[in-house]
């Protein structure tokens, strides 16, 4: 039996996780955001406008799709929550539209965002253009190189992209830079944090904004097969898509929840981002959670073939779901993810984001277990959180397709 999963408390704690480890200068802005968000969520004009934007602009609800050919191959029914079909190609549009609408409500005219793979940056730039806000995106210089097309997209949408050259030049350093900017600009600027991590209220705010994924999927699943799935899988970078689909299922004890972290080149190589699997507790980017750190508490650079999972911390609610036993976290290596990626392409004609390929790889690993437990009726639901266009260069290189073309 698992412990009851509740939370967070009024100060953003799930058990020992979460909270606010931030400069005092940001506390007023976080308090303001917390109050505005609670008020907005209770205000029908806000929620109706948010719903309208999702429906009319972002192509939401996304469909739940029975991947029949893949299902036949793996011996369990695989249902894909097609967040890749959302406007801008990922679940992230839900979060950015919600937070951009909140920004206007706060009377601010500028957003800043950090981005790893570029998905959140593109989504933020999109929301800013849609709602008439100024937008600055911090992106690690290394990520800018890996995701040049997304940099061009952001600029096309009118955002300023600032390459971050400090540290490992990846997502964690972009968050540091965004926090530095925010300390200096908090009067007119909202920090549109891209995942269910960071100081309170961001983890709960982002979770709530993306929690439509799970609510829709739950209802769609009941419509489609008349019952809930046996398991739900999602990839876990910062943790927003996973919290988005998990949240509606957390009270459903019959549904097993699985989060898959980036195992990178393997847990024994140190080149991974498996914080919940092999990391330990600490404080980074405003919250207590699981981290990749050395014996001195210095943050270790994470690694994944997927820039979107390449982050040394994770949202605090995941830490709590792990600690409470409600969700299970495992690591998926680059190689397993790429196999799943290719398999989905070939069986279903769907090119997933490399992040989502981790969730799929996890589901494929689970399939025999689920079949043994639940027989022919076993159903696994995968949050296909994004589409793979942005990752084609990485995938083409990985599979040696660029040389074939030449």
């Amino acid at each position, binding site marked *: 039996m698992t412990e009851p999963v509740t939370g967070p408390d009024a*100060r953003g704690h799930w058990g020992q996780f979460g*909270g*606010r*480890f*931030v*400069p*005092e*200068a*940001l*506390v*007023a*802005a976080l308090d303001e955001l917390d109050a505005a968000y609670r008020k907005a969520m209770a205000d029908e004009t806000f929620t109706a406008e948010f719903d309208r934007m999702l429906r009319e602009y972002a192509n939401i609800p996304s469909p739940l799709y029975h991947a029949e050919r893949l299902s036949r191959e793996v011996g369990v029914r695989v249902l894909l929550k097609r967040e890749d079909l959302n406007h801008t190609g990922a679940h992230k549009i839900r979060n950015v539209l919600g937070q951009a609408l909140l920004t206007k409500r706060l009377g601010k005219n500028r957003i800043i965002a950090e981005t790893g793979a570029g998905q959140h940056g593109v989504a933020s730039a999109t929301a800013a253009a849609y709602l008439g806000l100024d937008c600055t995106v911090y992106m690690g210089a290394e990520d800018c190189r890996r995701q040049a097309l997304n940099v061009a997209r952001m600029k096309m949408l009118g955002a300023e992209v600032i390459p971050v050259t*400090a*540290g490992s030049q990846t997502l*964690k*350093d972009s968050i*540091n830079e965004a*926090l*530095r900017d925010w*300390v*200096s*600009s*908090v*009067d007119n600027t909202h920090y549109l944090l891209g995942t269910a991590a960071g100081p309170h209220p961001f983890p709960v705010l982002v979770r709530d904004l993306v929690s439509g994924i799970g609510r829709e999927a739950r209802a769609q699943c009941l419509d489609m097969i008349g019952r809930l799935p046996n398991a739900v899988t999602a990839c876990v970078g910062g943790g927003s898509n996973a919290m988005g689909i998990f949240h509606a299922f957390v009270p459903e004890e019959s549904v097993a929840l699985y989060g898959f972290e980036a195992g990178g080149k393997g847990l024994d190589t140190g080149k991974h981002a498996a914080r919940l699997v092999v990391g330990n507790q*600490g*404080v*980074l*980017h*405003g919250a207590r959670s699981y*981290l990749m*750190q050395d*014996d*001195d*508490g*210095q*943050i270790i650079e994470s690694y994944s073939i997927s820039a979107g999972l390449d982050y040394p911390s994770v949202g605090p609610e995941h830490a709590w779901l792990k600690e409470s036993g409600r969700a299970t976290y495992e690591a998926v290596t680059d190689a397993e993810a790429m196999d799943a990626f290719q398999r989905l392409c070939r069986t279903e004609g769907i090119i997933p984001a490399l992040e989502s390929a981790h969730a799929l790889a996890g589901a494929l690993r689970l399939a025999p277990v689920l079949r043994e437990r639940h027989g022919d009726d076993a159903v696994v639901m995968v949050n296909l959180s994004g589409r793979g266009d942005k990752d084609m260069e990485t995938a083409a290189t990985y599979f040696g397709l660029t040389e074939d073309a030449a």
Partner: protein
Amino acid sequence: MSVTPAFEAAKRAGRAALVGYLPAGFPTVDESIAAIETMIDSGCDVIEVGLPYSDPVMDGHAIQRAAAMALAGGCRTREVLRVVEAVAGKGVPILVMTYWNPIERYGVDAFARDFAAAGGAGLITPDLIPDEAAEWIAASDAHDLDRVFLVAPSSTKERIALTVNACRGFVYAQSIMGITGARDSTSSAAPGLVERTRAATDLPIGVGLGVRDGDQAAEVATFADGVIVGSAMVSCLLDAPDEKAGRKALGSLTAELAEGVARGAG
């Protein structure tokens, strides 16, 4: 050794205290010890030793660079304690300014114990607010260490009250909404913030972020009990062609700032 006697002595002398910052291990552990000795000899009343950290969100370019050099040179928490031990006992209280994660990783009580044993006075914690500081408050009580939390221009009356009640030694007033780094002009928000803080506490109030020269120090000293200088001191060493020239520049700047804090109050 608390910072309290240093602030009291400055007050008796009719001036503000000069608080100087340098990361431990920058450019090397031994050279940071020598540089801090220079700061003490040239007029600092209190020293802040920075604990180099991989993700220093409150710091601007100069301090980030210095911390990265210190980390690359292998400076970790134990070396920071070595620096504290080497410069303590020279009549000037030594604080450590640190992000929170390395302290938790070391063990909050274990760090407090070892730091107190090394002769340290207390901690300044830029990303730890009193709301999350129960473990540190207990450890600092147990080992009789100063606790310096920050107040900011955005702090409400309630938060200032909460923060100063948790402080011991002095209160760090962050004079601007921003990160560390020398600036051309000091903050217009600082006097108001100090006034609001003074209404809530009898503790001395130090003002930091942005001070780079004697004139600015003099200006801040007219309303604050302590003038905190970091990036400008770090830059002396960053910009110098060699170690000797760096220490010379650091000594000159410290002397100029010390003259400034005396002039400001006079």
